[in-house]
């Protein structure tokens, strides 16, 4: 039963309340990165891992440091500091431990630091009052949902490279319209799960 709940949380975060298509977050990265499939995949992997870890880290810090000290109002500053610090550390460690991986994914790390989803996940965890496991699942679901969105979008934009989009709509405008259409399709998932 517990697992069923977590699964629902995961599906809801990934599909129904997909960050891009229903919560409208992470759009800058979403539009910036999906021009190419390779970068989308690289970003997806990096993003999902950072998301889960930062959800966990921030949960621990919030629960065991901020709440006891009454520093809840500093959440913005602290969460962004934690994410930035973690990303910096990951960057350094990865460079040392696995230069190959760093070469592949390092550039995305830099982009992530100030992404609004990365920040939204811990903020939502706090406001929804999720426990540790739930926070991780929420982070993971959000990451998977964001990755799915990026990969779909990249495949569509690759195909669109070959199409005669009216000049004024090339690039971002048509990408917004595609996103709108995907969001319309994703409405099909709505109502599957009540949260």
């Amino acid at each position, binding site marked *: 039963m517990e697992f069923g709940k977590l699964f629902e949380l995961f599906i809801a975060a990934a599909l*129904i309340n997909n960050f891009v298509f229903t919560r409208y977050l992470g759009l800058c990265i979403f539009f910036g990165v999906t021009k190419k499939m390779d970068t989308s995949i690289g970003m997806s992997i990096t993003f999902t891992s950072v998301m889960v870890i930062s959800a966990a880290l921030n949960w621990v810090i919030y629960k065991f440091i901020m709440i006891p000290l009454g520093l809840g*109002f*500093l959440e913005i*500053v602290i969460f962004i500091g934690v994410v930035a610090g973690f990303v910096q550390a990951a960057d350094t460690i990865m460079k040392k431990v696995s230069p190959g991986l760093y070469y592949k994914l390092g550039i995305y790390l830099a982009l992530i630091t100030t992404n609004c989803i990365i920040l939204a996940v811990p903020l939502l965890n706090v406001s929804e009052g999720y426990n540790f496991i739930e926070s991780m699942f929420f982070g993971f679901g959000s990451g998977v949902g964001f990755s799915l969105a990026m990969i779909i979008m990249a495949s569509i934009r690759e195909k669109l490279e070959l199409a005669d989009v009216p000049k004024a709509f090339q690039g971002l405008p048509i990408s917004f319209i595609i996103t709108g259409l995907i969001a319309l399709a994703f409405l099909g998932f*709505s*109502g599957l*799960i*009540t*949260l």
Partner: protein
Amino acid sequence: MKEMLKITASLVIIFVAAGLVMAVVFAKTAPIVKIKKEQEETAARKKMMPDADDIIEAGQWEPYGKKGKYFEGKKGEETTGYLISTYGKGYSSFINILVSVGKDMKVKGISILGHGETPGLGDEIEQDYFKKRFEGKSLEQLEVVKVEGTDKIQAISGATISSRAVTKGVSESVKLLKEKYSATEPAKEVKK
């Protein structure tokens, strides 16, 4: 080394200054938030039960595993009615509802405290025309129908699920109140 010191110093000064700013703002705003929140809550209850002088918490319950409370409204010594907060399982969210019930166990009014239903469809439940449909309903009448002209609750077209969720939430809370209070108040009402 000197550079390190300089960097640290500049960071520390910024941190301290910013921390101070935030702390001051927090100190100023936190009490306001708290007071306003309480005011809003009591105002909401008051609005639902204008005839009561005093609304006292009478107990808690757990609709859908969430926290709900119920209150007795008093005018002097006399109970004027009940208030109960409840939830309904809607299209995409649990709908938080506050129900005002009279001594006769008929609904006096409802108010929607929070929900995440689809804007334009499910969120019609917030509209007055829909909330009015609950006024004066007894437990038996708290059932959703999709046609006009009955004494039951008519669904919002295009949002049957949300309508049903609200109705279920309301009827569950009336049921609870009946259980709790029918011993003291012989609530079996005349049906028409």
